[in-house]
């Protein structure tokens, strides 16, 4: 759901269209959080949603602690659960095999593409990703991350990522986030996007700021984010 400055809210896609999005970006930029929030948003609209954990380096450290909770919310989650990986040792550091075929499932598919630097290139592990007309590759940018902490660094970073169809402006400082921090980061990210000719899909803002955010500040919709990842413990 996207809410615009006039107070009207609407779905980001027509209900009939299939949503296929891959969240990529710098390590710790908020990819998993964006992917979870997006998947749950689509689910809340009564849609069928599959969330895919595509972290090739540390599948143990990503969605695993939240998998059961997310399944209880009605999502199909492709990723390793604790019983799946118990006893496997280092050989357990692998993708759930079903991830390869995720695009052949019915309904919406959201990919959480872990571990930063390889960007969308990790999608080469997924059948049909290259030919898919539905797939959108979305880069998550947090201006408070030093690697994307200035206009020049953001532009340099996005160029390194390869294919990027859209950005999400996700500036925050964890528990120490302020409106000023979000606003400054958003302004810079939108400037970069304009310079690079890439759309900004939305601004991700912790829902605790929902009464305080000025919707007229930027010509980009806001999504209110619930932070699930702190519950992942590590």
């Amino acid at each position, binding site marked *: 759901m996207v809410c615009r400055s006039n107070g009207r809210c609407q779905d980001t896609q027509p209900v009939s269209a299939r949503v296929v999005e891959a969240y990529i970006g710098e390590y*710790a930029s908020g990819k998993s959080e964006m992917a979870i929030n997006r998947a749950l948003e689509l689910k809340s609209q009564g849609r069928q949603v599959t969330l895919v954990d595509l972290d090739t380096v540390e599948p143990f450290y990503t969605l695993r602690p939240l998998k059961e909770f997310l399944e209880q919310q009605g999502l199909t989650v492709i990723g390793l659960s604790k019983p799946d990986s118990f006893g496997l*040792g280092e050989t357990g550091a692998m993708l759930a095999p079903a991830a390869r075929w995720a695009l052949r499932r019915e309904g919406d598919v959201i990919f959480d593409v872990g571990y930063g630097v390889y960007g969308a290139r990790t999608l080469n592990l997924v059948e049909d990703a290259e030919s898919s007309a539905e797939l959108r590759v979305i880069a998550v940018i947090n201006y408070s991350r030093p*690697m994307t902490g200035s206009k020049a660094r953001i532009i340099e970073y996005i160029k390194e990522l390869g294919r990027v169809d859209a950005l999400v402006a996700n500036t925050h400082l964890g528990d120490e986030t302020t409106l000023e921090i979000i606003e400054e980061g958003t302004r810079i990210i939108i400037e970069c996007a304009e310079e690079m000719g890439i759309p900004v899909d939305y601004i991700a803002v912790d829902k605790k700021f929902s009464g305080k955010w000025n919707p007229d500040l930027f010509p980009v919709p806001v999504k209110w984010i619930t932070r699930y990842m702190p519950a992942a413990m590590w």
Partner: protein
Amino acid sequence: MLKVVEETKKAFLTGNETIAWAALAAGADIMFGYPITPQNEVMHYWTRLAPKYGRDFLQTEDEISAGFTVCGAVQAGKKAFTATAGPGNVLMQEPFGMAEAMRLPIFAVIQQRGGPSSGTVVYSQQEVALTTYGGNGEGFRIVYSTATHQEIYDYTIKGFNVAWKYRWPTFLLGDGYQAKMREPLEMYDPEERGIKLEPTYPLVGLPGKIGEDREPQHLCNIYSLEEELYDVVTRLAAEYEKIVPELIEWQEHSCEDADIIILTHGIVSRAADDAVKALRAQGIKAGYFRPITLRPYPAQQLREAIAKSGAKKLLIAESSYGQFERLTKQEIYGETIKIETLYMPGVGIVDYDIINKVKSVL
């Protein structure tokens, strides 16, 4: 040369990334390393950043080599470091011992992972014994056990300084959680903050003729006479013990009237801090004590905290099976306070684990 931290501001980082930025800010010249979880992103970020700031990196063939190349680089006057974990820390004990014997100012980051043995990559606090007293020697080392990303940044900068000021091998002891988790911290330029960066200097190849212009620089780690080794180790011990009061760091609060003191180190002390506050709110007199330096250990300070509180019990909580308890016991030998333990090897400890344990023993 590009400035590393252009302006002091809060940033959102993982622990490993924090180490790479702090090492840059501290003026580190070169990292030597060999990949191992959970320190990999120290190398990943260092190798992404180092070329932009004119710094170097060498991936060696294994951890033994990584440790020895650090030993070599500091002798050439380079501010050098490495980062490792678990079995990598085991392999590096030989070069770490060499650094103790030759008083080499090396700095190493240890991101603890589980054990015993090689393949366990997950969080743990099971490298306490190895990092403080590993190797064939007497543990002449300086070990900082951090709890927050701000501390990781601060003590990485400090670690280089302490290594070069005192010339003992210096360690930052983190863990798999601190490596991977992300939280805000303030990144700053140390010199703008009034932190003087210790100058580096070559230890070998010095100018001047030995015997005329200067004394010989005798950096030695091999002694073939027992009596000679006796003299050397005794001298090293005296030199180390002399600086202990300058190095000791610890945190304590709520110990004055405590019935029970909770003793933790590293990331577990965050849970202990929360637990003490919650217990106090429930009227239970709990105190908090945390060594920041595990080596040298703040033994006198802990003894004083026990004495002034009159506490009947000391609860030691650790994500290992007694390594921290054994380290503590040898340091406070003779104290009669009853020691309770909460061992959770490989598992994170949260506030209610400690709260429940306190309630079960009081």
